[in-house]
């Protein structure tokens, strides 16, 4: 070996660009993700004087007021998951296996309902079926009383309609990637069609279905806006976390911390089940010959199309309701006959700050997400090491943490010097970056896996340094993946409620926070106008996403 030059080489190797990125991001994640998270765990074991105690946990597991919320959360999430499967699977089967009309349109409607602002569902169903709802009043005139929408039933209805798209999208993806030969083989063996579906098709898509179902469960478990609006007396965990934290003001957050730990335990358990039980047996293959799409007679075709359209439209209904109500004339907070632009006038007059906040924070967050998402996905995919797998694991962590919990942990961690961030725009932007970066990372990683390593080597070989090669070649090739991921990050950022509601202060309130407060004040017109701004931006962004990804990248 070259004794004299070896140490120098190690030194330059150590200070190269990628190590800088690697250790830099690790440091940032430790400060802004791991540290807050541990702060919350530690707080959950403290009493108000700062001594160690298990009192919070004891209270939680002994007082019905607390432990019932855990049960409520599991019950609403569990039941919504079951309904989502019952709705999503047949719908996926029909649209992938039969020649129904307007498949693209049905798909788009379903994707849009998944991407809608989180509480619009609850809000709209209240507008329709609530105490003074459109349909309620209609039926009341005919002398029929509709069942109340508030509480358990309403939460399950909204969760099911909002999250069944996960099941639908996952399963229809799997359905169309089963090779034709598999089902043909069963047909040859004389199985009837139903038997074939039950014994061949279903088992093959089972792991994918499970993955979709788990997404429904986790999203329901973490959702804050829906149960807050429509739950009324029926409390679920995230709502309790919020209320506890608000009442514990002064920043102890002991009980809220304990509740957060309980939620994280639940979702981590579910995620582990998915990783070790379900993901183990994944049979989905790339279909050489995609399955046959059955040609139906005209009558049946129209019937099935109508059925699918009905489901898609009901899922999309909240957004229509919101847009329509935003144009109804109001008198103060009360709707009156006729259409007008008062609601919009009001928000531009009163709430324009929220609108600029939303877009400003989201744009800053997205720029950071794009830069870091690109570098980090490259590290994780192409520079495998212990640290990069640690980064990978940390980056997936925000999937498990509900927004309200992330919000609390950041408040607990950053409410004192040297990092006094609570109440600032910075803390909100950091929360958005951490929570929404996984979308960008996942979609850029997917693209990176397809880039042949020798392409980069070819560039290096031609005399371009590895760092320049990354920017000249790799980054360019990753661009479509990064861009489509970034659009998803963008959509979910502008619609983010659960962490914003914990972190906002008067100056930093966003549109979603304003919608929430307006609804609480029963100012439905302005809430609808604000929500319409979000919905329209979301729809436009989704169209852009479709155009950028050319249908090659899935939103989920």
């Amino acid at each position, binding site marked *: *070996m*070259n004794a004299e*030059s*070896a140490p120098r*080489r190690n030194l330059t190797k150590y200070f190269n660009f990628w190590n800088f990125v690697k250790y830099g991001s690790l440091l940032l994640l430790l400060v802004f993700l791991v540290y807050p998270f541990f702060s919350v765990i530690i707080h959950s074991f403290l009493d108000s004087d700062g001594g160690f105690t298990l009192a919070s946990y004891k209270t939680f597991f002994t007082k019905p007021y607390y432990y019932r919320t855990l049960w409520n959360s599991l019950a609403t999430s569990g039941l919504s998951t079951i309904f989502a499967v019952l709705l999503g699977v047949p719908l996926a089967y029909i649209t992938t296996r039969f020649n129904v009309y307007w498949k693209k349109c049905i798909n788009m409607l379903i994707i849009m309902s998944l991407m809608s602002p989180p509480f619009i569902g609850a809000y709209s169903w209240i507008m329709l079926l609530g105490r003074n709802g459109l349909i309620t009043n209609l039926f009341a005139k005919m002398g029929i009383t509709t069942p109340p929408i508030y509480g358990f039933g309403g939460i399950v209805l909204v969760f099911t309609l909002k999250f069944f798209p996960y099941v639908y999208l996952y399963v229809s993806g799997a359905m169309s990637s089963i090779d034709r030969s598999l089902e043909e083989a069963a047909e040859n063996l004389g199985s009837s069609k139903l038997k074939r579906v039950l014994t061949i098709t279903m088992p093959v898509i089972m792991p994918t279905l499970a993955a979709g179902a788990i997404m429904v469960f986790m999203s329901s478990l973490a959702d804050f806006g829906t149960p807050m609006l429509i739950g009324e007396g029926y409390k679920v965990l995230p709502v309790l976390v919020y209320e506890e934290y608000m009442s514990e003001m002064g920043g102890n957050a002991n009980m809220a911390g304990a509740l957060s730990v309980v939620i994280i335990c639940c979702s981590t358990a579910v995620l582990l089940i998915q990783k070790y039980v379900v993901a183990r047996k994944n049979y989905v293959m790339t279909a050489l010959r995609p399955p046959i799409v059955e040609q139906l007679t005209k009558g049946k075709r129209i019937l099935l199309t109508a059925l699918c359209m009905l489901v898609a439209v009901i899922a999309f209904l909240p957004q229509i309701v919101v847009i329509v109500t935003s144009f109804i004339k109001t008198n103060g907070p009360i709707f009156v006959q006729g259409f007008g632009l008062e609601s919009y006038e009001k928000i531009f007059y009163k709430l324009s700050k929220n609108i600029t906040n939303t877009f400003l924070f989201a744009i800053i967050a997205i720029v950071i997400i794009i830069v870091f998402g690109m570098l980090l996905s490259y590290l994780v995919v192409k520079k495998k090491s212990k640290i990069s797998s640690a980064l990978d694991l940390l980056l997936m962590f925000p999937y498990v943490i509900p927004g309200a919990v992330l919000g609390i942990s950041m408040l607990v961690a950053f409410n004192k010097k040297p990092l006094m961030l609570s109440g600032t725009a910075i803390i909100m932007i950091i929360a958005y970056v951490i929570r929404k970066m996984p979308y960008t990372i996942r979609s850029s990683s997917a693209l990176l896996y397809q880039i*042949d390593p*020798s*392409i980069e*080597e*070819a*560039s*290096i*070989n*031609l*005399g*371009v*340094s*590895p760092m320049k*090669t990354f920017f000249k*070649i790799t980054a*360019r*090739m990753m661009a479509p993946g990064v861009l489509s991921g970034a659009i998803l990050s963008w959509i979910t950022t502008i619609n983010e409620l659960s962490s914003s509601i914990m972190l906002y202060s008067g100056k930093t309130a966003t549109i979603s926070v304003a919608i929430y407060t307006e609804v609480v004040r029963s100012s439905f017109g302005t809430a609808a106008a604000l929500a319409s701004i979000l919905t329209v931006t979301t729809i436009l962004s989704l169209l852009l996403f479709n155009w950028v990804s050319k249908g090659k990248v899935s939103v989920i």
Partner: protein
Amino acid sequence: MSHSVKICNVVKRYDDFVAVNDISCEIKQGEFFTLLGPSGCGKTTLLRMIAGFNTIDGGKIYFDDKVINNIEAYKRDIGMVFQNYAIFPHMTVFDNVAYGLKARKVPKSEIEPRVLKALDLVQIMNLKDRKPSELSGGQQQRVALARAIVIKPGVLLMDEPLSNLDAKLRVQMRTIIRKLQRDLNITTIYVTHDQEEALAISDRIAIINSGRIMQVDTPATIYKKPQNTFVAGFIGTSNFMDGKIEQIGPDGVARIKLDAGFEFSIKLKKKYEGRVKISVRPEQFIMNDSGESGLPGEIQMYTFLGDFANYEVKLKNGQIIQANEYTKDIDFVREIGHKVNLGFNPEKVSIFNEEGTEVLS
């Protein structure tokens, strides 16, 4: 002017596994040098060490008199052609070829003529504005080649550049590569596991097995004078037969008795006693209907292959031997079951020690 390359006791380890085990060889300036060996023997690993994509765990590599071990890959002044071409998909053919020149800060006015000349050399001038997705495999290969030579590299490396092409195109491309390499006089290290390709294209070949060099020689010497049984068996077809040195004279002439029942004398270059292995190529046998000087056997199988016929002959000790006979030399077919006598010229066959690691003749 391209470099000579000197590889000295080079080692590459993956944990406990030694992929390149103490390899040494010298490649002359302007030489076409081929690394040939079975899959997994370490050819790619060695090539990537020269390119700078694999670290060197032991030994040194020199370009001319300069050790390159610690020079970064992008500063090594190497042109490389990859097995899967590695064309930049977002650039046109022209921009792909110009890429290395731009990186070298070649003046703009010079770039265009040089790129066009390189494209002309590989005969794809007309495709210069195409995107890679609009090219066939063979055309992409030409782009890769043009991109590697346009920078006038000190050393040109190629890792199985033709293995993704069909047989006819492969022959066509290898002629182009060889001609180009001669005209430009670039030191070239070429990796392949196709022995026919290696024999056809190379000035010299290094045969590698399990991370070690077995022999370095010109194609003709490799074929005619294999240094060990691995090379004899890997290049072309060889029949191996066991035997024993019966007696050895003071002049070095040994009397060798084969187990299959035939004795002959030959002058050995090395002193050796005991059991030996001899290797005879199928076309080295002289087939007779009868006669004493040769191995007696019986024809088991006959395959007509146009310019020659291949026989499987069973010897007295049960061993099956491949023997070829040119069809222009005979005008009849030897039937299955026919008794024959297989003679050979002892001067032409290879005689090895018992382990097959050393040639004696």
